[in-house]
């Protein structure tokens, strides 16, 4: 009995930590609709500042708590700076574009933190006066855990007071429900958003600062918390602080008991719970349908079929690319193969997001499924390369069929989160199932067949398959099927009303996107000669999102620009010191200068040039 109670209390203490960071994320999302990927970075900064303050102040209990609060305040100011400099300028950009911007911020903060505090983990002091354990039912419980168990609900109460008893809180709640109306009533939304972002950042900083007595402060804190924070926010319902609290308790307590029965479970447990909750309650426990979507976006220009001249230009471009092996210096082709694979992957994601209106945070699942299926087909089934290449996309399509069936029942951010859960569960299985997938040691020796093993031969194979895939995706987007998908994206109700089974179409779209991603994964496996769980990690999914959003969601050509820019940029920049900060900076510049992505920026420029010429003619 005592043992289980102690385990329960441990779970509650973890829940408090998780709640602090998740509540801030939830508030930011609720008000600004920003999926703040840099929230983990704010949490990490809170921990680093608290470490520095506590060790410098070195003044017992008073110094400790002052340090914690000061650290959280500093992080709140940093949050305000981020909001004013970056996010404020792109609220009107397409939904989720801010995700890429916050990812850029995350990269910059990572390198700045490394430069300031160094690479080594920092172990702060324990909380003065709370450094021992007390016995409850004969079991030792750390005093600090009990303090955390109290702090969590206290913060929840304070947030509740702030939101229900102050004018600011009323305005924020109003903005959460109907932003246009609040604006129409003359409320200055800019400062409302900035202050809400500050509150969120403060909570993240507080969460990080309070971790100092529990764990060492390290550069890995940001990415290790952000996944779970998202999960908690989604389970609770985006924008609901109470929901975040309940969800944090559920996850942490389940985990505390889960490790007793099946220790490996902690890898996927949060994502399993999230998947189950979303299937049963599509908007999380306390969320509403309104919480699923960001601001309405500017409707995009209708798609036009490509003109004869356009087709000629594309054909010429492909022909030019096909001449690249003549220029090869041993590396150009390698890089180009990576670019082609990235293009196909990004285009498949764009088909899902841009055409189908279904945002996926876990598209890497199908890329990885294709790669693993091909690798296993070669290694375990002994299939030749071409057969394995056909097998990969089929398995990816099958995976997309299973997960897609659940995903298309949701919409907006919840759909995105379910795709993320699917990808994380698959990743966990791949990571864990060592006898089949080799775990994180991966599958080695997946090299192309002899006839395709020379670089030019494999390059042509990749070129043919990628171009075929890209043409097919474009063709699909222009087919009646593509029109139905876009209709469903722009107005699901009207689409259903004219007698179209939208879900079935979306499901098929999901499967097709999965198959194309799988094809990209197959090419990836053979080009690298090995497959590791990284192929279906969150990182791979985010790379895809960055490519699509950088390229521009509203143009079919976008992913091609985005993928080339991203791969070439990353390859070039990783030679430099502090390349993450540089990459983050470049992302921010593109995001701020071209909020519709590279394709949008270029066509804007084109309009400008053409418009300028016209006026010139008139004059």
């Amino acid at each position, binding site marked *: 009995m005592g043992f289980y109670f102690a385990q329960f209390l441990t779970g509650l203490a973890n829940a408090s930590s998780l709640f602090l960071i998740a509540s801030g994320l939830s508030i930011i999302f609720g008000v600004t609709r920003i999926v703040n990927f840099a929230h983990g970075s704010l949490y990490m900064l809170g921990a680093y500042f608290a470490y520095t303050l506590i060790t410098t102040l070195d003044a017992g209990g008073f110094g400790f708590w002052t340090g914690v609060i000061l650290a959280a305040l500093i992080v709140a100011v940093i949050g305000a700076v981020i909001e004013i400099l970056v996010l404020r300028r792109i609220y009107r950009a397409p939904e989720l574009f801010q995700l890429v911007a916050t990812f850029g911020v995350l990269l910059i903060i990572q390198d700045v933190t490394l430069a300031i505090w160094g690479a*080594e983990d920092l172990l702060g002091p324990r909380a003065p006066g709370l450094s021992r354990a007390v016995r409850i039912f004969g079991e030792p419980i750390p005093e600090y855990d009990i303090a955390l168990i109290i702090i969590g609900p206290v913060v929840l109460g304070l947030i509740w007071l702030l939101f229900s008893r102050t004018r600011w809180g009323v305005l924020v709640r109003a903005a959460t429900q109907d932003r246009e109306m609040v604006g129409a009533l003359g409320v200055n939304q800019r400062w409302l958003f900035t202050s809400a972002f500050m509150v969120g950042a403060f909570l993240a900083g507080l969460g990080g600062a309070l971790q100092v007595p529990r764990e060492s402060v390290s550069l890995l804190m940001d990415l*290790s918390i952000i996944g779970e924070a998202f999960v908690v926010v989604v389970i609770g319902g985006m924008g609901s602080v109470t929901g975040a609290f309940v969800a944090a308790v559920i996850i942490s307590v389940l985990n505390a008991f889960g490790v007793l029965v099946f220790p490996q479970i902690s890898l996927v447990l949060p994502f399993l719970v999230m998947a189950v909750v979303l299937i049963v309650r599509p908007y999380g426990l306390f969320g509403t349908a309104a919480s699923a979507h960001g601001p309405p976006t500017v409707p995009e220009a209708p798609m036009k079929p490509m003109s004869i001249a356009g087709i000629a230009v594309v054909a010429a471009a492909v022909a030019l690319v096909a001449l690249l092996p003549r220029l090869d210096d041993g590396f150009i082709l390698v890089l180009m193969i990576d670019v082609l694979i990235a293009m196909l992957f990004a285009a498949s994601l764009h088909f899902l997001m841009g055409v189908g209106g279904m945002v996926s945070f876990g598209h890497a699942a199908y890329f990885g499924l294709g790669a693993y299926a091909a690798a296993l087909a070669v290694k375990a089934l002994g299939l030749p390369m071409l057969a394995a290449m056909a097998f990969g996309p089929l398995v990816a399509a099958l995976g997309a069929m299973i997960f897609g069936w659940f995903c298309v029942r949701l919409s907006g951010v919840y759909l995105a989160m379910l795709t993320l859960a699917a990808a994380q569960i698959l990743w966990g299985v791949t990571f864990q199932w060592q006898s089949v997938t080799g775990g994180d040691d991966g599958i080695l020796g997946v090299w192309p067949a002899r006839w395709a093993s020379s670089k030019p031969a494999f390059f042509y194979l990749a070129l043919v398959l990628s171009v075929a895939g890209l043409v097919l995706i474009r063709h699909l987007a222009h087919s009646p099927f593509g029109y139905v998908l876009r209709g469903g994206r722009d107005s699901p109700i009207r689409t259903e009303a004219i007698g179209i089974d939208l879900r079935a179409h979306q499901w098929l779209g999901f499967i097709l996107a999965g198959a194309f991603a799988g094809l990209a994964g197959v090419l990836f496996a053979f080009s690298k000669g090995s497959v590791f769980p990284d192929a279906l990690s969150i990182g791979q999914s985010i790379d895809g999102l960055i490519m699509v959003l950088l390229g521009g969601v509203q143009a079919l050509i976008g992913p091609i620009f985005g993928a080339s820019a991203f791969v070439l940029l990353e390859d070039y920049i990783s030679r430099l010191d502090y390349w993450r900060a540089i990459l983050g900076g470049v992302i921010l510049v593109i995001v701020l200068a071209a909020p519709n992505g590279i394709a949008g920026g270029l066509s804007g420029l084109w309009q400008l040039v053409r418009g300028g010429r016209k006026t010139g003619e008139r004059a």
Partner: protein
Amino acid sequence: MLTRRELQMALAAAIIAAPFAGGAAHAQDPIKIGEMNSYTRMAAFTEPYRKGWELALEEINANGGINGRPLEIISRDDTGDPAAAIRIAEELVNRDEVVMLFGGFLSNIGLALADFANQNQIFYLASEPLTDAIVWSNGNKYTYRLRPSNWMQTGMLAAEAAKLDATKWATIAPNYAYGTDAVAAFKEQLKALKPDVEFVEEQWPTLFKIDAGSTVRALEQSKPDAIFNVTFGGDLAKFVREGSIRGLFDDRPVVSLLSGEPEYLDPLGDEAPEGWIVTGYPGLAVNTPEHDAFETAYVDKWGEAPKTGSVVGYNSMMTIKTLLEQTPSLETDDLLATMSGLEVDSPTGPFFYRPADHQATMGAYVGKTGMVDGKPGMVDWVYADGADFLPSEEDAAKMRPAE
């Protein structure tokens, strides 16, 4: 719009081709060697390693290089991603035309590079990866490994663990190949030495996300006589903190892999556990003439004490120096032939590369954790020669795939 794509391609080609300049090799041309490691992803572990090989490189070139030719290391960040590592390896081998590759910290990147080396017929010296697979189940002709492996270091610990009168053991290890392999190797070797041991509990926390409180409770519940730990970094700090506050380590011996390495021990500060049986590196406390020379040079150059990675980085370069001095030519076949059985002198003593399984016999230090001059360090340590903890060359050869 699409003409811009062409433009972009051409621009890309230009950027990529810019640093490329051809020319025949002259006697004074540097010997180019490719190196990569997870410098951003694993900065705390790879920085000392970089400082180690940079010191050795400086010394080699100050003494006239290799037969009059200076050494040039092209060093890259593999970003912690095996796919990126392969791409960089392609560039180093095909465009920069390096003679060989070395480096790697993460096991999966080491395995990917080893497989790449095999496919592209280039010599790869795996400096840091610990996985046994790299020389055994996935071993190949083109790959050698320097650092004492998982099997060797768990063997050193199993020898110490067998001396304890503990029979009921619990294990805690991060939930990925390194952790599972280490636990399996420890179990096998301890059981061989002491057949009556039993393992009563296993915990597999997620790497860098340990739920330390719950894990400690679960270990405590099984009431083991002793604990075998593989966690490291932030996980270890959390585990130590939660474990000591909850009395998990009271009157209970802990055997802990790699925890004596300064990279793992230093961040724990005055909370570092005392009396744990560990493998590691005592740093400045090693007092042999060869080590003193290395230590002085290192402290002079970097202003800090060497860590385990520093030794591995330094010994990698010592291996390369010895190899290049002895090899008849820079052709891969000659490099491989010279590597087989190559004897290398190093700050931690001489070692050689076993012909049968390509594993170096470089050893590690085994001792207990304790406080040395107010800082956490190793006490009562001895140097365990790697050769004593490897299976016979015959048995090792059987574990490798046929060539």
